[in-house]
């Protein structure tokens, strides 16, 4: 007989009150049978659907059975308190009964939830940067595109020429407020009566957040601060005024009441004396605007600051120059594009062409293109990667639950049968099984909450500086709620669906036969998925580790051994210090330099070569005295080092530059002339290429020369003969003594070259740590799942193993039998994971100019590792099962 459409039936079963369902469905069936006879199947189906929809009426939907329905139809509502108590009780009993799988699940879920929570705290912190300002969607930063010279390349810059913000205010309409400010790095002096003034060192030396800016009064119109003292309207109007943040004011003046701090004197840049005109409260939310000292803008023209900040400058740009813009309601940055182009045409400069643009405030924390010298950039792809990692780990944990629950479902079939016979509905059963998952998830969330603080302090190097979090905020609680809900549904829905579908007549008869689709394909698929994820992580770990190793060990083209850089104040006293250091025992060589040969700082300038054809290009400058090249042991390919001199006389270039200039052999370049700032200089030598930047960048053209005005830092090569750590320490402390004699007020500041080079790869180090952690967690959880399954299968097949042994099977063959299935799955996982990992690692390696190859053996090694781990987990259980005496396993029936 033809059946009516299944979905319509399901719909009816869903909404129709249980006590009415039988008669209604019966009537509909009867009518359907007649319709099929009279009108044909298609018409009948149509009518059936319409009839079902016709029952969408209050009387049919209303649940409560009224007094007329016979008692046989009364069931307890599946959400009544009695049932809820029963669900909870059964859940606790079941969880305590199956201790191993409960522990595995709890452990996995806890790891997963903890990883999720940690990553949530981090990403939430990063994404909340500068989102708290009122009208933040209307606040922009003035950025732009700069082009140096008519032929130069256009590139984005995060800072306009000094004169631009002031001119924009007058010439371009459609901007509500514009506020220029300049960041300043200087020591701060607080006059202290007749005694020596108190000195607070500049952040250049202490490495803190950017703190001092010279700001227009409009700055406070755009970014809102809470004023604790002083008049917000007039505080920054006059020259020689400063507004401090509350914390900074207390740092400078101790615990004086704020009102008394007003009017006190502060000295910036040695001699700019300003008085405190206001005090504002520090922001508590995450922000890139970490400034605490706001000097009035009018001070620039009135003081010696005008030598550092030329407000009429159009033809150069400085990263200290900044401006914020607030647009009126309803105005988009696109509307200003045309006026900005016009503005740029009106102010064409010979040296620099600058076209203004606007960067949304929300972009400031993430966009690397627009550099400045105060914001800390977060890497968005990394954040998204983190979220994906969290999701995958939680998924793996949920899969463990699904696998163990479905594997054990046979044992619970009887329970389901009895419950159904006693009148439990399918909904009731599903709720009951889900409540077990929910209970587990809840417990793991509680454990995760207890763990998060210690974990965050352990992983401090991985978390952003200043990370703060509030576990009891509404947002966090909402997140936890969502985690509990999705995890319980993810982990619990499928098992409960399967369990509740058992037919009582079959299960109670004692047949534990698995119904269709239950041959474990899903379980196998999930194990493959788990191991594929783990394998991707393993391959990632291996690759990232290899690349880091490669960067650490590759020949850089110069020596990094026992070289330190002493960061002086870049004044003439540094020469004195260099002389003193030179005389110390334990110092092999001393060079005056601008920066070391490799590091974060590098400067590019334009050089011109007038040979057969003129070549003008950007060349990186390495500035140091005649000891510079020997100190770093750069290798000469031709010519010689430049002679000792008191100004730039001669140059040495690298092989890449020589090649770019068209010389076939390095020696051909020697004695040619190169124009720098309009004057020709002879090339006296060519050195072999060396790395001057991180491995992300290709080696470019470089020249080396001595410029006394720049070369004010000191590079020191320490003697390492018979090299012992204590020797280095005594040498360092004697250098420090010399420093104290020359700079009594400042802290001795030095870095080891290899350390500062390692710093170039801070991000990669973090990635490596992260991938390692993720791998460890993923493998751990997957293996626990596998362990649970293996335990279970071994238990199930006790009898089979016994019979096999009686018939003469060896222990090895039984172990093989039990392990084979799992190994096959791991192998399939490897096949799936390899291309994914290959693609992901390719993406990551793209950023490097110098990188390792993606060798096939890495994939093979990862596979081998996974198989070994799997074998180890499964093998333990298999061997245990295989060693059992068959007498024991076959004795009882």
């Amino acid at each position: 007989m033809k059946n009516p459409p299944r979905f319509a039936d399901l719909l009816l079963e869903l909404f129709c009150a249980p006590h009415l369902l039988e008669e209604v469905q019966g009537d509909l069936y009867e009518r359907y049978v007649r319709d099929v006879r009279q009108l044909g199947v298609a018409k009948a189906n149509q009518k059936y659907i319409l009839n079902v929809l016709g029952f969408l009426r209050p009387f049919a939907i209303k649940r409560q059975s009224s007094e007329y329905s016979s008692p046989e139809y009364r069931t307890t509502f599946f959400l009544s308190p009695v049932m809820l108590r029963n669900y909870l009780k059964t859940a606790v009993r079941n969880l305590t009964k199956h201790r191993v799988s409960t522990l595995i699940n709890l452990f996995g879920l806890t790891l997963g939830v903890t990883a999720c929570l940690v990553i949530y705290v981090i990403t939430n912190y990063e994404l909340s940067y500068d989102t708290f300002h009122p009208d933040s969607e209307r606040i922009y930063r003035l950025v732009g595109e700069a082009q140096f010279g008519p032929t130069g390349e256009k590139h984005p810059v995060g800072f306009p020429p000094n004169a631009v913000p002031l001119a924009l205010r007058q010439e371009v309409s459609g901007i509500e407020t514009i506020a220029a400010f300049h960041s300043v790095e200087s020591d701060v002096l607080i006059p202290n009566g007749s005694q020596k003034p108190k000195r607070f060192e500049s952040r250049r030396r202490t490495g803190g957040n950017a703190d001092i800016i010279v700001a227009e009064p409009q700055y406070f119109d755009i970014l809102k601060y809470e004023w604790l003292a002083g008049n917000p309207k007039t505080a920054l109007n006059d020259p020689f005024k400063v507004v401090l943040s509350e914390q900074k004011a207390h740092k400078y003046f101790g615990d004086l009441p704020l009102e008394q701090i007003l009017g006190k004197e502060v000295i910036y840049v040695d001699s700019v004396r300003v008085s405190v005109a206001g005090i504002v409260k520090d922001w508590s939310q995450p922000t890139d605007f970490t400034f605490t000292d706001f000097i009035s803008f009018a001070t620039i023209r009135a003081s010696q600051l005008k030598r550092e900040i030329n407000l009429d400058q159009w033809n150069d740009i400085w990263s200290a120059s900044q401006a914020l813009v607030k647009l009126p309601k309803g105005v988009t940055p696109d509307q200003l594009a045309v006026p900005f182009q016009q503005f740029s045409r009106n102010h064409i400069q010979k040296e620099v062409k600058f076209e203004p643009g606007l960067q949304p405030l929300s972009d400031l924390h993430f966009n690397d293109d627009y550099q400045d010298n105060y914001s800390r950039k977060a890497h968005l792809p990394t954040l998204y990667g983190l979220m994906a990692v969290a999701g995958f780990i939680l998924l793996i944990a949920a899969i463990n639950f699904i696998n163990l629950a479905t594997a054990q479902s046979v044992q619970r079939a009887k329970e389901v049968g009895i419950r159904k016979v006693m009148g439990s509905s399918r909904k009731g059963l599903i709720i009951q099984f889900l409540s077990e998952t929910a209970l587990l998830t809840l417990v793991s969330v509680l454990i995760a909450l207890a763990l998060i603080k210690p974990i965050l302090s352990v992983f401090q190097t991985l978390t952003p500086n200043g990370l703060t979090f509030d576990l009891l905020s509404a947002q966090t609680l909402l997140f936890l709620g969502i985690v509990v809900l999705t995890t319980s549904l993810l982990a619990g829905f499928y098992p409960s669906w399967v369990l509740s579908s058992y037919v009582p007549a079959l299960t109670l008869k004692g047949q534990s036969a698995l119904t269709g689709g239950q041959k474990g394909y899903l379980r196998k698929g999930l194990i493959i998925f788990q191991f594929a994820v783990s394998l991707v992580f393993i391959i990632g770990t291996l690759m990232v580790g290899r690349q880091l190793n490669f960067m650490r060990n590759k020949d850089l083209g110069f020596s990094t051994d026992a070289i330190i850089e002493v960061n002086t104040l870049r004044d003439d006293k540094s020469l004195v210090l260099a002389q003193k250091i030179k005389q110390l025992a334990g110092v092999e060589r001393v060079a005056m330099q601008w920066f070391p040969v490799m590091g974060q700082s590098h400067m590019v300038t334009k050089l011109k070569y007038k040979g057969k054809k003129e070549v003008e290009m950007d060349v990186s400058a390495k500035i140091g005295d005649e000891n510079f090249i020997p100190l770093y042991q750069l290798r000469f390919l031709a010519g010689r080092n430049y002679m000792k001199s008191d100004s730039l006389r001669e140059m040495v270039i690298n092989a890449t530059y020589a090649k770019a200039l068209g010389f076939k052999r390095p020696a051909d370049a020697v004695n040619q002339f190169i124009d720098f700032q309009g004057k020709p200089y002879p090339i006296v030598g060519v050195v072999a290429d060396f790395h001057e930047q991180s491995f992300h960048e290709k080696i470019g053209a470089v020249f080396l020369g001595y410029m006394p005005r720049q070369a004010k830092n000191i590079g020191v090569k320490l003697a390492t003969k018979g090299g012992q750590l204590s020797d280095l320490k005594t040498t360092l402390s004697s250098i420090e003594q010399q420093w104290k004699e020359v700079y009594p007020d400042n802290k001795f500041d030095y870095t080891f070259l290899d350390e500062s080079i390692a710093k170039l790869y801070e991000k990669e180090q973090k990635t490596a740590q992260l991938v390692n952690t993720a791998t460890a967690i993923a493998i751990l959880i997957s293996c626990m799942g596998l362990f649970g399954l293996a335990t279970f299968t071994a238990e199930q097949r006790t009898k089979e193993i016994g019979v096999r042994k009686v018939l003469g099977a060896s222990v090895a063959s039984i172990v093989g039998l039990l392990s084979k299935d799992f190994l096959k799955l791991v192998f399939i996982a490897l096949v799936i994971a390899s291309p994914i990992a290959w693609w992901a690692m390719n993406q990551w390696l793209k950023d490097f100019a110098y990188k390792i190859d993606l060798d096939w053996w890495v994939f093979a090694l990862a596979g081998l590792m996974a198989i070994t781990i799997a074998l180890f987990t499964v093998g333990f259980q298999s061997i245990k099962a295989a060693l059992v005496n068959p007498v024991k396993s076959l004795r009882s029936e």
Partner: protein
Amino acid sequence: MKRTYLGEFEEIVLLTVAVLHESAYGVAITDELDRQTGRSVSISAVHAALHRLEEKGMLKSAMGEATAERGGRRKRLFTVTALGSRALHDIRAMRDQLWSSISPNALPAISI
């Protein structure tokens, strides 16, 4: 006289239940309605009316036997209660009384 109000459709359904005597259930009533009055009504409308009549106490019901054409499901058989019977009689008496009060020429003749 205070009595429960019966809608026109409810009245017809109640009468049909009486007509079918002990074999009145959803589909049968729908079919009988169709046959006797030519009104094609949906099963759900009939169920709703039966439900309301039962709530008003004019019908009582019991589960009947299952048949194969219903997919093994039982039907709910309805019978008219004393209250239902009383209501039907009242309505009929009122109608008769009204008819007898109409003077012979008051209604326009229906042309044939």
